[in-house]
């Protein structure tokens, strides 16, 4: 999913770079409302967690594997703005130090995974929470729904970018079908793991799941007293 250099032409890469810079700039300001002066260490550690989570591959079929993208997961756990920052920083570090994702494609990657992935993932999560019955068990389900939609959503935005500035002459419909079909499968894995992880965290430290505020409030007080020291 990490777009390398040369996949999209220079104008498209620069345009997505501007979008990414604006998104990250906004997230930098808004994340302070979620974390205040804890932003730097907390977002840094959550970014390290997302990076570690992305190292786990799961089989997708036909001998290939996908890995967790973590946009929806991070958004549910720490809030959308912090999640946007964390995923952007993960992509920056991967691009600068590991050549995973091209530097000219950094804007594209941030736009797709940090902005589209998080916004869609969190939006669907909120919508699903509104529809599902109001009890703690609904939070992991809603998180899974967010993850399920966020991955193919990012894939379709990629297909759109590829139709505008792609460097290979492939029919846009073909790209869209292949990308969305493939990422639906990855999205299912993402959804199952996201839901299970959120439910595991709710079981032990519900106070740490930002998206579950107001759903599991009673247990949180006792738990954080006991483990937080």
């Amino acid at each position, binding site marked *: 999913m990490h777009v390398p250099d040369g996949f999209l032409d220079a104008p498209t890469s620069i345009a997505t770079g501007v979008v990414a810079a604006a998104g990250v700039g906004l997230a930098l300001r808004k994340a302070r409302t979620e974390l205040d002066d804890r932003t730097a260490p907390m977002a*840094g550690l959550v970014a390290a967690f997302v990076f570690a989570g992305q190292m786990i591959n799961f089989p997708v079929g036909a001998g290939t594997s996908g890995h967790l993208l973590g946009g929806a997961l991070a958004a549910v756990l720490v809030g959308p703005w912090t999640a946007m920052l964390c995923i952007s*920083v993960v992509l920056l570090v991967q691009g600068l*130090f590991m050549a995973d994702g091209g530097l000219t494609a950094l804007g594209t990657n941030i736009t797709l995974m940090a902005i589209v992935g998080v916004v869609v993932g969190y939006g669907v999560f909120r919508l699903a929470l509104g529809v599902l019955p109001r009890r703690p068990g609904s939070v992991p389900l809603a998180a899974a729904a967010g993850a399920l939609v966020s991955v193919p959503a990012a894939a379709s935005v990629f297909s759109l970018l590829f139709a505008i500035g792609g460097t290979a002459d492939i029919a846009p419909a073909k790209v869209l079908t292949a990308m969305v079909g493939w990422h639906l499968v990855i999205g299912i894995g993402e959804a199952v793991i996201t839901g299970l992880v959120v439910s*595991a965290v709710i079981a032990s430290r519900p106070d740490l799941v930002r998206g579950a505020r107001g759903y599991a409030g009673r247990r949180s007080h006792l738990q954080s007293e006991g483990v937080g020291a």
Partner: protein
Amino acid sequence: MGAGHGHRLHFHGHSVVHRAPAHLKILVLLGFVLGVVATPREWYPVFGGYLALVLGVVVLARVPLRYLLPRMVIEVPFLLFAALVPFVAEGERIAVHVVGGWELSLSESGLLAAWGLVAKGTLGVLASLTLAATTEPAEVLRGLQRLRLPDLLVQIMGFMIRYLDVVTSDLARMLTAMRSRGVDPRSPRHWPALARTLGALFVRSYERGERVHLAMLSRGYDGRLPEEAR
């Protein structure tokens, strides 16, 4: 970076390339990859020139290719994609004979596109790895700061890099513990166990962040890092 261990992707050295200011190296790298991406893919000799340029810098930095090449596996999935392009691209098709009397129908423009993808992608990966190999992570951060990347973003990157090895080896120990109990983390059958592991990893990372923040506050942190701590 205070810790005594180097980063996995950094190759220690004292060459001209190692000593060059990080912000200049980042700018040169950005200019280079932008140039590569903007170059029309039919200009074959120019790509040869680019490759010679990168390899020249690698030689100047005395980073062995043995060190860089294994790290280039990062682009393998993408090379596989590039190999598919000639089969699915539009445009005029040409027949290519392969061993055993088989004939492949490939798109001509697709072949050209695949060449462009492979050439540009590989140059980008090689150039980025060269920056990483010749520049300490702390130096890269200082360079980014000098290039006016927002301070908060640089701080978050700094914390991520500082604790990356701690968190990933935390996960590695958890996975070892899972395997020793007969659980295969990759298998969907064992996803519930994997998810509990990841949940525990999140809680540990989050709590570590809280402790780091308290430790920083007790040392007078006011939203900015002191210069010598970077």
